[in-house]
């Protein structure tokens, strides 16, 4: 059996709001395997982005972190800023939803792609610029030579996202974290970018952690899935198993709320809304919206063992 590239263990993230610590992420555990796409899916505010940021310890000082993020024999969460700098962008890279805000508007595309190579790989600028050209080819940007000299505002949203991917891949990282990389794009452009990421993952033997709220995207790109609700991973497993036999009441309900383009079917909403981190319910955080709530649900359920695991008192085999 291959061993995980990264192990996230009992990760918790709290923020101090009005003098009270609020647990936004409530002790989540998952592995990232080599050369796979792991999708973290969930609705707005359920903690996907801060979970992703904490894999590189990128959270503001106001956040309190607990648990472990094991990677390459180290615990990322206990590393010093200087050690983190060496890992970020080099062995673990991240791309975001809105490339316009994460690209530097006054630097050319070429300069921005070359920068991490100069910083992390000790390349000279002219060598780095050459490599930047190769990277634009890798992300299939036509007319690469011309694009190198352009500024972000001269590019379309889809092209900007390709540039972000090129920057992310510059130092050949082992893990690429992509936070809603296609959410701001039109569907046809989204399809292009997803296909590109998939091709690159295979070519480069990369692991991708894809954060998304779109179950359609998950079904099409994931190898494994972690479903998050209100700061908990409530279900995780291989993608086929999650979609063929969803187990957690939240996963089941969520799948019934997505309108599908290929068939008309009865939408059934989940009543209520995701709780705010200041008002998290005790125990299972989904219980107040759950149709299968039991008397045990005021205690937080743990994920069951096994490849496809679920954290729910109404689902038998859990402690």
């Amino acid at each position, binding site marked *: 059996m291959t061993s995980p590239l990264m192990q996230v263990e009992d990760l918790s993230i709290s923020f101090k709001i009005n003098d009270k610590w609020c647990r936004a992420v409530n002790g989540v555990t998952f592995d990232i395997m080599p050369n796979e796409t792991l999708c973290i899916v969930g609705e707005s505010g359920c903690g996907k982005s801060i979970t992703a940021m904490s894999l590189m310890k990128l959270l503001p000082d106001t956040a309190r972190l607990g648990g472990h993020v094991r990677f390459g024999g180290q615990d990322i969460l206990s590393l010093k800023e200087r050690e983190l700098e060496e890992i970020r962008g080099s062995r673990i890279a991240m791309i975001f939803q809105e490339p316009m805000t994460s690209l530097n508007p006054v630097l050319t595309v070429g300069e921005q792609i070359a920068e991490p190579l100069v910083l992390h790989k000790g390349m000279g600028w002219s060598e780095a610029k050459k490599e930047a050209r190769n990277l634009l080819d890798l992300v299939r940007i036509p007319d690469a030579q011309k694009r190198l000299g352009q500024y972000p505002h001269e590019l379309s949203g889809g092209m900007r996202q390709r540039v972000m991917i090129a920057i992310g891949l510059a130092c050949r990282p082992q893990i690429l974290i992509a936070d809603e990389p296609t959410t701001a794009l039109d569907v046809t452009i989204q399809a292009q970018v997803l296909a590109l990421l998939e091709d690159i993952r295979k070519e480069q033997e990369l692991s991708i952690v894809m954060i998304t709220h779109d179950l359609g995207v998950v079904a099409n790109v994931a190898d494994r899935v972690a479903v998050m609700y209100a700061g908990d991973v409530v279900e995780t497993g291989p993608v086929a198993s999650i979609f063929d036999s969803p187990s957690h009441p939240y996963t089941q309900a*969520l799948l019934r709320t997505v309108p*599908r383009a290929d068939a008309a079917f009865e939408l059934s909403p989940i*009543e209520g809304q995701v709780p705010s981190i200041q008002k998290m319910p005790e125990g299972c955080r989904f219980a107040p919206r759950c149709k299968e709530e039991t008397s045990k649900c005021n205690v937080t359920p743990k994920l069951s063992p096994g490849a496809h695991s679920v954290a729910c008192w109404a689902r038998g085999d859990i402690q």
Partner: protein
Amino acid sequence: MKDLLVVEGLGKTFGSKKFLQAEYAVTALRNVSFTLGKGETVGVVGESGCGKSTLARCVLDLIEPTTGSVLFDDTDLTKLDAKAKRDIRSRIQMIFQDPYSSLNGKRTIGKTLAEPLWVHEGVKYKEALPRIHAVLKEVGLPVSAADKYPHEFSGGQRQRIAIARALILEPELIIADEAVSALDVSVQAQVLLLMNSIQKEHGLSYLFITHDLGVVRNFCDRVLVMYLGSVVESGPVAELLTNPKHPYTKSLRDAAPIPDISRRQSLALLEGEIPSPANPPSGCAFHPRCPRATDICRSEAPTLQSSDDQRMFACHNPEP
């Protein structure tokens, strides 16, 4: 079904008169025609920049079209004087995408809901209260919401408030521009079902602008597919999505990811990007991206033709 809305030859070119001669004129909307029946929902889909919102704004008379007419209940909205316009405007309402910026943060929900009643009917707040309470209940909010401010509500609740504001004058037509796009799916389903039940109750018509074919499939009766300012295909939703005639419709459908593992596929790839409306391609605007394009497509713009019953499409080489 009697048509509530008849749009004919609607076009909109942005740019000053001086600009019109220069190359800066941008045609955002080109010769768009469609009808909307009483109690019907017509969807408008297409990628960003295809003219969906310009179409909505022309219908609502927020901007003046360059060509064409908008008949609402047999009255041409483009030919009315200011007063007549205001009267008829109470019968057409709009809901926008962003439930955060479309409500005035300094006003209570009650005051926001009272405003259209004051503007159109001269009704004062106190007298308006029973109607405000009724409409809040109708959208599933407690009457106590009237005394609260927008920031006290979630995105889904704010969109309910926006629906309440649109409903309070009992309009016949609601134009929804990406009204559920910013919502989480669980809440989106709540709002869609609410809009459905309100439609049944009041016999409302919706013009529903969205980029989401899943929403179209499950919420609309008919749909217009737009590309670079023109309608490229239209028809009843189920037929159009099952058997698209225009290659663009087919590409859009095949690019929409379906949450079903048995449908996992490399999402069919449409190459390239939507061109700038300031510099549209010759012939059929879609030809540079079209897998079925032939010589004629590069030189001649196809016109809308009807295949059967209610299907229309503009393509020289339609899908079989």
